[in-house]
């Protein structure tokens, strides 16, 4: 399987990086030199991420990105920038998001693009942009790289939602710079990129004022914006740049990030894509287009013992946990956006439990090291990306697998897992085992704030305690079953049939019904801002996106920009 890939490893990227000419696939890889819409500049320990959208460079045809409005392509660059700031710039303690156009901060998602996009593109677009905003909050809260926002002009809709994802919002006080969430009155949809939720849950804006704000097309500016806690500070033009930088500098100086290390360059990811394959160094994915399955095979670390923490910065992207995070992240984004018919993802792994566990031990022991912290956070975010992918998730624990610690999370995030009880007849490979590590108990919280094992065993908390005692033991199928860690443990006689039936049954159900069911079952436990955004806000938005009042012939999204007025069906549903 890897032989085919080897010859590509030294070549500069496979077809994946230049897919637009050959397919309509969207690529997620970019770098600051290639940015079309953002400018990243660094001044000491302060970074500035300035939006200057090139209106002609769009991911699909049929619209122009006027007034710093964005499409998926713009957000892919933003995501890339947040990743590079974390890894390549340990010295940066504060990031200013601003705009390089005078009088315009950002007009939000491009309406024409939304109007002509298919439903699934809209949903994927919203999901990705939501994740990017969560990444920004994650950087502020956990990487000590604090994002602040300098609104130097109009910030409408998604523009203000971007600001809401930052930790401190400064608004130019020039009598005309306004913030607004005009989605409802203007477009008959919601500020669905976290806007409604962050307004009342994060900034704790009074809900009656939020109601006024979200129904006022022209938005709010100046003193009232501060009074209502929509922004943190208003600053006159003559002092704007200076004050913004001063704030940033103060926050940056507060950060615990090291200023004297070089950082880790995120080298271009080498991915080989063909019609039915997507292969990178540690992950190979086979697409079965008959059954609509993506079969993941994840390879564990090959070296016998992990490096020391001192070597990490030199190893950089080649450090196995970071490599896995990057490859998995890229694969998930690709499959979600470009392979929407592939409804079931099946995870397998190949390697040694002990080696994965050794890497986990290194991560766990050094979690206060800036780079280790970043890698753990990246794995956390990537696993969360899988959690909220609208795909059926299945993990197969077979002989030769290495579902240990970090990789065991795949077992926990799956809707179901199957572990072979015993060996396969006629094969020499020992029966599979799984292994818990310290990383399974809080290092990778889900959107609900709980570890996956706690979420799964919500009704049996004593089992979670029990599982902690099993850390670093190799558990066979019966032990794993007893501990509540796997769903089924068929033996080799039943294995093939059980797995086949599970997959075929899945393929027969309604994809919509499945997405809904899975999303409701996966997130037991408490609500958080994130679960509200993905559960409540996105669900309402996706319902509204289907309704004639938004997307019908006379719906607001369709008619926006024509000067004609939408005709609403006045029935409340």
């Amino acid at each position: 399987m890897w032989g085919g890939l080897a010859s590509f490893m030294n070549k500069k990227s496979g077809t994946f990086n230049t897919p637009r000419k050959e397919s309509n696939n969207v690529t997620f890889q970019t770098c600051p030199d290639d940015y079309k819409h953002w400018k990243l500049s660094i001044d000491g320990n302060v970074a500035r991420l300035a939006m200057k959208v090139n209106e002609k460079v769009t991911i699909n045809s049929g619209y122009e990105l006027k007034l710093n409005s964005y499409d998926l392509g713009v957000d892919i660059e933003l995501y890339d920038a947040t990743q590079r700031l974390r890894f390549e710039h340990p010295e940066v303690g504060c990031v200013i998001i601003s705009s390089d156009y005078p009088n315009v901060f950002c007009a939000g998602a491009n309406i024409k693009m939304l109007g002509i996009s298919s439903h699934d593109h809209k949903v994927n677009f919203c999901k990705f942009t939501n994740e990017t905003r969560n990444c920004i909050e994650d950087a502020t809260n956990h990487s000590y790289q604090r994002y602040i926002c300098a609104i130097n002009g109009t910030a409408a809709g998604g523009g203000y939602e971007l600001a809401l994802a930052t930790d401190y919002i400064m608004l130019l006080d020039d009598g005309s710079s306004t913030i607004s969430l005009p989605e409802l009155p203007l477009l008959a949809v919601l500020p669905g990129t976290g806007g409604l939720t962050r307004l009342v849950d994060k900034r704790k804006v009074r809900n009656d004022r939020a109601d006024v704000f979200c129904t006022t097309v022209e938005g709010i500016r100046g003193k009232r914006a501060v009074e209502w806690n929509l922004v943190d500070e208003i600053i006159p033009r003559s002092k704007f740049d200076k004050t913004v930088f001063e704030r940033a500098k103060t926050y940056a100086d507060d950060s615990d990030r090291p200023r004297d290390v070089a950082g880790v360059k995120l080298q271009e990811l080498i991915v080989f894509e063909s019609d039915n394959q997507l292969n990178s160094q540690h992950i190979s994915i086979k697409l079965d287009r008959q059954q609509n399955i993506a079969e993941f095979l994840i390879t564990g670390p090959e070296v016998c013992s992990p490096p020391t923490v001192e070597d990490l910065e030199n190893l950089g992207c080649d450090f196995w946990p970071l490599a896995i995070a990057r490859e998995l992240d890229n694969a998930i984004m690709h499959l979600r956006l470009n392979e929407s018919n592939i409804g079931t993802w099946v995870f397998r792994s190949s390697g040694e439990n002990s080696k994965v566990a050794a890497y986990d031990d290194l991560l766990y022991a050094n979690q206060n090291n800036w780079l280790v912290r970043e890698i753990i956070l990246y794995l956390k975010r990537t696993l969360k990306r899988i959690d909220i992918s609208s795909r059926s998730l299945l993990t197969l624990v077979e002989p030769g697998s290495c579902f240990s610690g970090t990789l065991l999370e795949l077992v926990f995030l799956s809707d179901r897992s199957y572990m072979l009880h015993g060996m396969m007849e006629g094969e020499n490979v020992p029966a599979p085992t799984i292994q818990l590590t310290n990383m399974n108990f809080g290092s990778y919280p889900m959107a609900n704030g709980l570890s996956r094992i706690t979420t799964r065993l919500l009704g049996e908390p004593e089992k979670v305690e029990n599982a902690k005692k099993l850390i670093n033991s190799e558990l066979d199928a019966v032990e794993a079953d007893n501990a509540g860690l796997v769903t089924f443990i068929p033996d080799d006689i039943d294995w093939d049939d059980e797995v086949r039936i599970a997959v075929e049954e899945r393929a027969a159900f309604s994809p919509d019904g499945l997405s809904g069911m899975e999303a409701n079952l996966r997130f037991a436990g408490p609500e958080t801002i994130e679960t509200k955004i993905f559960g409540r806000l996105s669900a309402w938005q996706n319902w509204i996106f289907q309704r004639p009042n938004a997307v019908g012939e006379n719906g607001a999204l369709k008619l926006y920009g024509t000067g004609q007025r939408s005709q609403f069906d006045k029935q409340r549903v």
Partner: protein
Amino acid sequence: MSIDLNARIPNNVDLADDRRLRRALESWQPSFLSWWKDLGPEGSIDYDVYLRTAISVEADGWANFDFVKMPEYRWGIFLAPPEEGRTIPFGEHKGERVWNEVPGEYRAPLRRLIVTQGDTEPASVEQQRLLGLTAPSMYDLRNLFQVNIEEGRHLWAMVYLLHAYFGRDGRDEAESMLERHSGDPDKPRILGAFNEETPDWLSYYMFTFFTDRDGKFQLSSLAESGFDPLARTCRFMLTEEGHHMFIGTTGIARVITRTCEVMKELKTEDPEKIRAAGAIDLATLQRYINFHFSVSLDLFGNELSTNAANYYTAGLKGRYEESKIDDDHQLNNDIYKVILFEDEKIKQSDQNALLAVNERLRDDYIADCQAGVDRWNKILKRNKTDYRFSLPHRGFNRSIGTFSDAKITTDGQVISGVDWSKRSRDWLPTREDREFVRSLMTKAVIEPGKFASWVAPPGRGINGQPLDFEYVRFH
């Protein structure tokens, strides 16, 4: 302390019986007066000025002349009389009865329209506040003050609408209009052109001809509004706006006349000799025309505008002389020819007429400007000069809309940025031009009947008064 506002504010809006409105205006009026004292015409507070005051909307009521100290001017609130049974003339509500209250769903866009229009009124007073110090005659000084005072009244008219129909938000907006100031880096006026200073009297004449004419077209399209109080307010304002443009049209004509006289006296067309004689050469005038025409074109916004289309469909802002246009007044399937800059070329193409409402207004404006230029050219012809003025191409020197990315010559050739930087000084006023013009205007000519060297006297005085009438009494 209560002020008898009804006596101080001539009006036809029943101010005496409207407690709510009276209370609102009482609190705004002191702010307005203090703004006028701070940013109104410099040094003019004690002057007695021969001003026209509107005291009613009847034919004889809007033009009462008397000497007034400007801070004591009776800024009135007048709406043109209501038209019996008026219906909304365009958009999807066409044919329905006009609104006498703000429709809830259009509250925000209507407020925006009124604020944007209202903001320009005090802005021009601020832009012109130093011009009195260099007035070319007492007649011109009086006209300047008349325009200033009427811009102040137009602000009142817009503030009245905000106070009367838009509740607390309206009052906040009215306050903000006194807080923003032309050219203030922290609180600038809303539209770019109103943050440029009016540095000299030639610029002032150009401003009243070109930029106030934009005001005329904006007011005309608002005068069609389905929101009747706005329509009626704008109709009354238009009578005064006409006078402002009269100052521009005749002012520039007087400059041209004077230049022709000098050319005849000296028997030369040499700009240097004309300048040496204290008049402004024709090429410099053309460069000023090029500048003011192009920046005023920007005020009409983008060629294709969703906002303008929404305003039209909603019945808030129509087209110029809507009722005289022969179509369905809804424009759902109509096309309009629009000149755009695409693929490095200037091209005319068919566009959705609804989205092109701005462009149509700009076209009407250009035609109106051309009529003025034609009048000036008649002066040249009468004086047997071969020179002719012309309007530059609509794409010349633009910062808003399709042409903002392009470099286009006055006659419509697309050129490179390098060529532009070499040649633009042939088309736009240079620093030397501006310095020369300013050098002619170092101090005010205030002796009744006397005029500065660079401008001819007008044909007649104000309200039938002689040219040497003492229009402004200093103390």
